[in-house]
């Protein structure tokens, strides 16, 4: 798989497809796609790591939760991320779970050049699908 993610046309918001050989990699790339709406994540130094563990009723809710949680930590902890490591996405009898780390650094406005802020993740036209060589995630975020 060549591309980690690609943006689709959307008049007001940002819509993307993220790919991965595994569901974990697709979740990582969905996070990259979302953060790259705001900033070139290659400019972020990866020195602080934040553990993220979430539980949700279904896989769509887990994706919504994952993206929402990253935005929450970004804003409240004043951290911007350049790397996402998803260890496991798994399902058991109570629901879906993600065990992950977001890695980055403290926001420094003199150095980090932000474009428009992502306000929130949405459920709009969300798709999580198995494709021939892995997984595809489609999501829209509110900008």
């Amino acid at each position, binding site marked *: 798989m060549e591309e980690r993610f690609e943006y689709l*046309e959307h008049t007001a918001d940002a819509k993307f497809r993220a790919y991965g050989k595994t569901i974990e990699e697709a979740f990582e790339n969905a996070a990259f796609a979302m953060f790259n709406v705001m900033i070139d994540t290659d400019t972020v130094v990866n020195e602080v790591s934040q553990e993220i563990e979430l539980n949700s009723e279904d896989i769509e809710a887990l994706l919504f939760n994952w993206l*929402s949680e990253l935005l929450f930590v970004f804003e409240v902890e004043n951290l911007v991320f350049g790397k996402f490591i998803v260890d496991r996405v798994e399902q058991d009898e109570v629901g879906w779970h993600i065990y992950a780390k977001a890695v980055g650094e403290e926001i420094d406005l003199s150095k980090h*050049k*932000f474009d*428009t802020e992502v306000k929130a993740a949405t*459920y709009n036209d969300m798709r999580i699908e198995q494709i021939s060589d892995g997984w595809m995630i489609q999501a829209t975020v509110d900008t």
Partner: protein
Amino acid sequence: MSEENETSVFDVLKKINDNAWEVPVGFKPGMNVPGRIFVSESLLHLLDMGTLDQVANVAILPGIQRYSMAMPDAHLGYGFPIGGVAAFDKHSGIISPGGVGFDINCGVRLIRSNLTEQDVRPKLSGLLDELFEVIPTGVGSKGRLKVSDAELDDIFVHGVQWAVDNGYGVKADIGHCESKGQMSGADPSTVSLRARKRGRPQIGTLGSGNHFLEVQYIDKIYDEEAASAMGLREGQVTFMIHCGSRGAGHQICTDHLQVLAQASKKYGIPLPDKQLACAPAQSKEAQDYFKAMVCAANYAWVNRHVIMHWTREVFERHFAADHGDLGLDLVYDVAHNIAKLEEHKINGKNTEVYVHRKGATRAFPPGHPDLPEDYLVVGQPVLIPGSMGTPSYVLCSTEDSMDISFGSACHGAGRVMSRKHAKKELIGEDIRDELSSRGILVRATQPSLIAEEAPAVYKSSSEVVDVVHDLGIARKVARLLPMGVIKG
């Protein structure tokens, strides 16, 4: 997504009149009412099938009354289209955060002055520099105002009243905010700790995206009587503030959307788009969301109020007079992302409905009990911001607005080009220079943000406003031209 659909909007829509088009029941299975799109034929060419699809999706939700509407500035959103309006019966209907959006009570306010364009022009650059310095803008900016948790509760419940009690703004401002800047029914216990954490440091921050503070002057008056009721006259300088409830509102929507996504399943409500997650209006899940939404709405009014207060201070310093002498009075403040319980006449009967306006402005007619005394005769002011380089408009609502559109009008020009596209096609520095050569100064955290919000990415504000005027929802009162703008 409407995959390479060959059908055009003209094949689907039925013409009602020059500015109203129907999406027939049956366009999508399960529609309870038709869709109604308020656009002129020329604006219709800018409408895509995705927007039509979203109008139809809303028509599928239980208890919707009369029709699922889209205002002339409508475009693709998530859940509801932007510019979407729908009323749901208080008892048989639903409440959906998808009909409000994440930026709860994003809205606009207009402040007039005694200053003329000639007074301000020579000082404009310094004025904008200081406004940009004083009002936190953009991603990662924190407010200057520190509030405690108890004060945050007060803000959630009392809105603008809290601001005025604490020295931000004056008493006369209160009546000139929609719902007096203090919607009733707030319950802070429905607001999560997470939303509080995001909301606490952000009061008095503009945010980013299409939010702005603009210095303008009035170049044209269309309606002398209404203009005089609003204290507006030709040549006068005004300023306009556009922002919302920041992280507090975003998190409140996020939290309750998760609850309502599960509630939709529990109540067996079929969802054409999961972002339309909802619950029966009187259920605990829906009411809890509504109470939290009211908290965010009141927070947003405080946010705009505090920004107005700081702007007044900057004007006071630059013109060495206090804001009373400068006549910096609040003309009006409107919400454009909100749900409200209102009474409307349906089939000749007064009915209580939850009206959802997502990217749409309330437009209540003359004599409506919710209006302040000074606007009872002329009707509610409707404020329509243009884009960075195009005019904004003040309108006043007419008698017919309730019947035509549940007392609703458009909220802006409406985007036509995506941000991604804009950043690729347009160069922020060029647009800044072009605007500057026309006498419009821009201060922004990033040149790319100017590209994302360039005039070319929006429909013509004049054309959008003409539809509202011609339909008879609201009458044009004044046109405002931009002089300078700050953006996050």
